[in-house]
């Protein structure tokens, strides 16, 4: 089992009711992980969600590694 540090922002933080959580999983990719967390927390459908792995933009189909920090990035609205 891999241990992953998930941090939530904005609408995802509100829906999850958590700033962060430690997830133990055998899921292989951020895409599979996001689908699972969406089921668990009831995340809304959004146009474009990105993923960051260890504080850098990452690939939805990258292989998750034990100890990775993961952030899902809902549509941004700076400026």
């Amino acid at each position, binding site marked *: 089992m891999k241990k992953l540090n998930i941090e939530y922002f*904005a609408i995802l933080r509100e829906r999850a009711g958590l700033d962060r959580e430690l997830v133990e999983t055998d899921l292989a990719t951020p895409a599979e992980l996001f689908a699972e967390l969406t089921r668990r927390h009831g995340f*809304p*459908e959004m146009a474009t969600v990105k993923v960051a792995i260890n504080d850098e933009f990452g690939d939805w189909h990258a292989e998750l590694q034990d100890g990775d920090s993961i952030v899902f*990035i809902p549509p*941004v609205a700076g400026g």
Partner: protein
Amino acid sequence: MIGFRIAAAEFQPEAERDSIAAPTCGGYVSFEGWVRNRNEGQEVLYLEYQAYEALALKEGNRIMTEAAERFPVQHALCIHRVGKLEVGDLAVWVGVSAGHRDEAFRACRYIIDEIKHRVPIWKKEYYSGGDSGWVNCEACAQHANDGQHN
């Protein structure tokens, strides 16, 4: 100086302007983004910006470097607020100084456009009716739900 910063409290753009003045520069362009009292037909009372700071700083600084590579500017600085902001407050400031005005205008425009689309910063608006919403997130969610029910 080429840089992007996040500010948790009010800052003074005049002081930032002075920090990027230089005798080699014949032009200075700045942009201020302010909190507006309406958005998409709703009256906005105040709002909250939240940042994923570690990545926002990386991506913001990448944008500033790109701007400096594309346009020959002397200094380019951008500061984005986080936290609670009231109507009229300064949300984002961009300042560019350059030898000539054209590159200063173009770099400033490039920076603000890219910042809005790429930097992981989110805005939650609080409306007069008591409702609130994360801009670009809730609307999409609503449309997605509409689609499912049709």
